[in-house]
């Protein structure tokens, strides 16, 4: 389907539906689907989001395995300890893809056509958000499967579900960040900026070791970094079972992230058409 026929289909969606909320949902779903089929049409865009988490899983768990001999790890396998890191990176990449796709659509003129169509403007970020969440489900499945191959069994049903949901929430936060950047810079050349911030956010947390083991500046930064609480909840789900003690800080951190980055994306959307 070409870009113009997409726009036309999105316009028809309005005429066939009733309320504006339903209309927005239908258009968002259409845009999410368009974003997802790009995976098949442009695998080079999606491939890094699949390869990088697997690389991080294998390289990190192999290179730094020795650190898990410290008492703070309580005998946990370092591969199992690294799985949440790989999940979060996979979700982060799924989110980044949303920003890169939006930037490409701005450069290619698709967004301009969408803005003059009857489609509600909010769908410009709601659609890629949906796609980011769905892509994170895919990357989470791949990472958990790689863990299974490596000998780390799946946690219980509720904990596995929690891993997926935490991944979706982080993908949404990363997507909001990346789309905010795309809407302001309007160029795909801003992709490194989208990536570097997400990399730094993840690696200045408890990415490689629990908080008890961290020292110096990183101990302070990790305490303030919302990704720390997301990773700790994911690790609890993976290793011991997720309890309220790990869940509520993660929920607070993710809510704060989504509120701030959602506002960042929405204000970026509001600026569209001003220049």
């Amino acid at each position, binding site marked *: 389907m070409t870009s113009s026929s997409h726009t036309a289909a999105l316009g028809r969606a309005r005429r066939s539906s009733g309320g504006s909320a339903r209309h927005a949902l239908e258009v968002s779903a259409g845009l999410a689907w368009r974003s997802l089929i790009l995976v098949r049409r442009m695998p080079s865009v999606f491939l890094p989001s699949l390869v990088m988490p697997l690389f991080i899983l294998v390289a990190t768990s192999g290179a730094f*395995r020795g650190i898990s001999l*410290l008492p703070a790890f309580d005998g946990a396998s370092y591969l199992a300890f690294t799985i949440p890191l790989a999940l979060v990176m996979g979700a982060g990449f799924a989110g980044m893809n949303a920003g890169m796709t939006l930037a490409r659509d701005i450069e290619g003129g698709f967004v301009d056509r969408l803005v003059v169509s009857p489609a509600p403007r909010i769908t410009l970020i709601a659609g890629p958000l949906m796609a980011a969440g769905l892509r994170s489900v895919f990357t989470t499945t791949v990472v958990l499967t790689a863990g299974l191959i490596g000998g780390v069994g799946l946690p219980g049903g509720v904990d596995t579900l929690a891993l997926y949901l935490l991944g979706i929430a982080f993908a949404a936060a990363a997507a909001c960040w990346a789309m905010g950047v795309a809407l302001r810079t309007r160029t795909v050349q801003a992709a490194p900026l989208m990536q570097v911030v997400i990399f730094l956010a993840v690696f200045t947390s408890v*990415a*490689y070791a629990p908080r008890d083991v961290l020292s*110096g500046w990183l101990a302070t930064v990790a305490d303030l970094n919302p990704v720390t609480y997301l990773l700790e909840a994911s690790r609890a789900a993976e290793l011991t079972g997720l309890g309220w003690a790990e869940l509520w800080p993660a929920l607070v951190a993710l809510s704060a992230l989504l509120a701030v980055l959602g506002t960042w994306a929405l204000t970026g959307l509001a600026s569209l058409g001003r220049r």
Partner: protein
Amino acid sequence: MTLALRQTGALAWRSVRGTLRTPQALFPSLFFPLVLMAIFTSSFGTAPGTIPGFPPVRGFLDFALAGAVIQGILIGGTTAGAAFALDIEGGFFDRLVASPVSRTAILAGRLGGGVALAMAQAVLFVSVGVIFGARVQGGVAGVLILLVLAALTAVAVSGLGIFLALRTGSAEAVQGTFPLFFALLFFSSAFFPRETMTGWFKAVADVNPISYLVEAMRDLVIEGIEPRPTLIGLAVVSGLALAAVIACHLAFRRRLAASP
């Protein structure tokens, strides 16, 4: 001979200036190694002295310094290769070949630029490490040997980048090899000692030349000048550098033969 040297110097200086004028090319090779060194030092600071098999070392920063130097050179080498490919794409390479410039100078200039940047980078990383509390046990002589190892590594890595540029003529293709270098780095003892690795991962690190190179540099920092690891490192990197230069030379001749 003197003219060829002057041409090499001019082209090397052009290469250095080109990198310095494009911050987006320079930034990754400085930023990522320093940030990762800082993160690893804070994440694994308690490892020395507590983990069985970890070599005796004053602190993790001393241990991590060599890995940062190698990482910077690997990223810089990809940039040098990509810049050479851009010269090919933009037609500057063809104009150079058509001019009376020595053909050896065309290759040696780009390699020389890569070596100069790598040595400056190594000095910067060691200085940053020392400012934050690292100590080079090998002293000034140890730093000089480390710079020789860094220079030879730059010849090997930049040479590989230039070889790929000559074969593909595409900066994108050369940049595409970056993940390969990144994988080579992680599947070595660049960030953690081989003694703590197990299974197939250790087997890969054992045959990865980066391991021997980084261990030679690391020994100069954490133990001082030890002949065995230094000579092994020098032998490995000299072999790689020689292979890269030969590959560049052959690819250069092939490109010239193929051009109309």
